[in-house]
């Protein structure tokens, strides 16, 4: 942290290391695919893989903006609670305010964006560390979801609403298209735009980024808002898939999302990371879950593995980085 290499040096060194990390990850992914396929003949079928894609979309949609946030050295722990709040408001506004469903969807997306905006606003203006701010809103947003819903669930949505969560489009689960579009857009934004490069600059040295005249606060405000918005979108997809709305929806998503991003090679210390890595991380986490489930491991034991993966991948990444810095 103390010695930041010159921009030219950083440009050369970082992609080289990233390439290695991601190639390594992709190789592990490939081996895991083959091993799981040999162990279980139901695993390596197109149906199963597409279905896994369906299940992973909700986490994937949030993992993309989380990659942005972690690259800037921030974190957002409130995403799971935003999912819960948006899901509840989708059902509540439809049922109790008699909003037409499309309006209710827009409303819940808007609430998601507003929830993220509040995070971003306090982080940039009051300078509350993102970790603490989002722990506070983790409690606040979940509390609002619980208070508004009074633990009642909403169900019985119209048939067309289930399309995005349950149907196929051109033979591929409908929500997977949503995820693919989001991946392509965020990949281009991160790699090819000033906005994207600003994220790396903030993560490497925020003070230097400020002195270079980069709009640090505006960029941060944007990514936290985006994170809330995508959590709202994820809530809509989730409700459409499971056909019901409860206040505990999205509990623990922050673990899946952060594990995905960190496993994908994004440094928790900021300044390093790619969307491509996050996509590979996402695939790995989902295959891990699916592979464990197929070999008869229950869901609760799976989160043990994900927790361990989160700690270990951070350990490996930070020791690799330290070695690189040492050389």
């Amino acid at each position, binding site marked *: 942290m103390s010695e930041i290499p010159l921009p030219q040096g950083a440009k050369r060194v970082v992609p080289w290391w990233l390439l290695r990390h991601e190639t390594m990850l992709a190789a592990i992914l490939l081996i895991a695919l083959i091993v799981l396929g040999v162990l279980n003949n139901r695993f390596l079928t197109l149906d199963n893989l597409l279905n896994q894609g369906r299940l992973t979309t909700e986490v994937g949609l949030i993992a993309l903006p989380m990659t942005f946030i972690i690259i800037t050295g921030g974190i957002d*722990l409130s995403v799971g609670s935003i999912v819960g709040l948006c899901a509840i408001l989708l059902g509540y506004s439809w049922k109790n305010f008699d909003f037409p469903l499309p309006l209710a969807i827009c409303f819940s997306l808007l609430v998601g964006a507003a929830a993220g905006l509040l995070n971003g606003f306090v982080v940039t203006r009051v300078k*509350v560390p993102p970790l*603490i701010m989002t*722990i506070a809103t983790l409690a*606040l947003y979940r509390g609002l979801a619980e*208070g508004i819903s009074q633990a009642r669930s909403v169900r019985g949505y119209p048939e067309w609403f289930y399309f995005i969560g349950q149907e196929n489009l051109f033979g591929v689960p409908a929500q997977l298209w949503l995820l693919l579009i989001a991946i392509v857009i965020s990949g281009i934004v991160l790699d090819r735009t000033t906005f994207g490069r600003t994220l790396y600059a903030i993560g490497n040295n925020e003070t230097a980024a400020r002195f270079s005249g980069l709009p640090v606060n505006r960029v941060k405000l944007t990514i936290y808002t985006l994170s809330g918005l995508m959590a709202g979108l994820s809530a809509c997809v989730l409700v459409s898939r499971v056909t019901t709305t409860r206040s505990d929806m999205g509990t623990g998503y922050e673990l899946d999302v952060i594990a995905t991003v960190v496993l994908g090679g994004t440094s928790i210390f900021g300044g390093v990371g790619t969307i491509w890595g996050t996509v590979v991380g996402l695939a790995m986490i989902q295959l891990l879950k699916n592979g464990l489930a197929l070999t008869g491991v229950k869901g609760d034991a799976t989160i043990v593995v994900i*927790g361990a993966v989160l700690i270990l991948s951070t*350990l490996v990444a930070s020791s690799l980085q330290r070695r690189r810095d040492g050389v």
Partner: protein
Amino acid sequence: MTAVTLANAEADPGRRLKALASQEALLAIAVIGLAIAVGLYNPRFLAMRNLSDVLLGNAYIGVAAIGMSMVIISGNIDISVGALIGVLATISGTLAVNGAPIVLAWLAALVAGILVMALQGAIIAYLRIPAIVVTLGMLSILKGGLISVTGGKWITDLPDSFHLADIELFGVLPVPVFLMVLATILAALWMRYSASGRAIYAVGGNPEAARLCGISQPRTIVMVFALHGFFAGAAALLYATQLRVIQSTVPPNLELTIITAAVVGGVSILGGVGTVIGSTLAAILIAEIASALVFIDVSPYWIRAVQGVLILVTVIADILRRRRMARA
């Protein structure tokens, strides 16, 4: 930022002391004021039975908040403590049911708590992984591990002597309240007057200055987490022994309540500042609010939202106050 604060605090220790005292005084006033206000609305709230239930049922949060305060003062965070308390309660209960000596069942919770937390502290301090990553990972390991081992079965038929929380000292003073008060006073004195207690503030306030003073930062952090594990163990015992059953699942969002108590108690999230007297008062205040909601006919489902607002307001107030102090 921390360097500025510490310099400021050292330049004017009187003012810092006053600011801290006011946080605790404020909380004490809030605890009493709220009781009076709710009592006027609904006198049943002030029934001795209700007040003692609030204290007894939540003393474990006060105890756990002591350790959490130390962790936050040292500049770290821990979100695994709620899951750990669930695991420790189950370990202790299982031992007691299977006929282990009661003292051993109690000790096991304390020792296991210290071990798990010291391990986390060591990973954070020596391998330099951020506390949030380690404790988030540990949260899911403990939570998933507990449910898959116990299958969510409740522990019943606990021996009578196991129920630490039922014992009344001298026939009047219930153990949970006694432990909470005793632990708070001892921890407050230790943190105020002992060298290792002061080291926690030094490491949290200005790690570089602490290092130059010859304080080992990694060792201090491991010590803080080990102590935090001890208090989590004590909290788990109170939690496990206050009911006739142990649910063998992790109490949902318990860590948030404990963090709220620590932060609202005046522990600065930027590290280096705070006392455990404040965190204990805050734990009482939060329990009181939760109980008051019922008596003023507000659904208890709002309690988490109230907690969120409390953290938010205290944190923002703390940062604004620091900024004003730095400017002055």
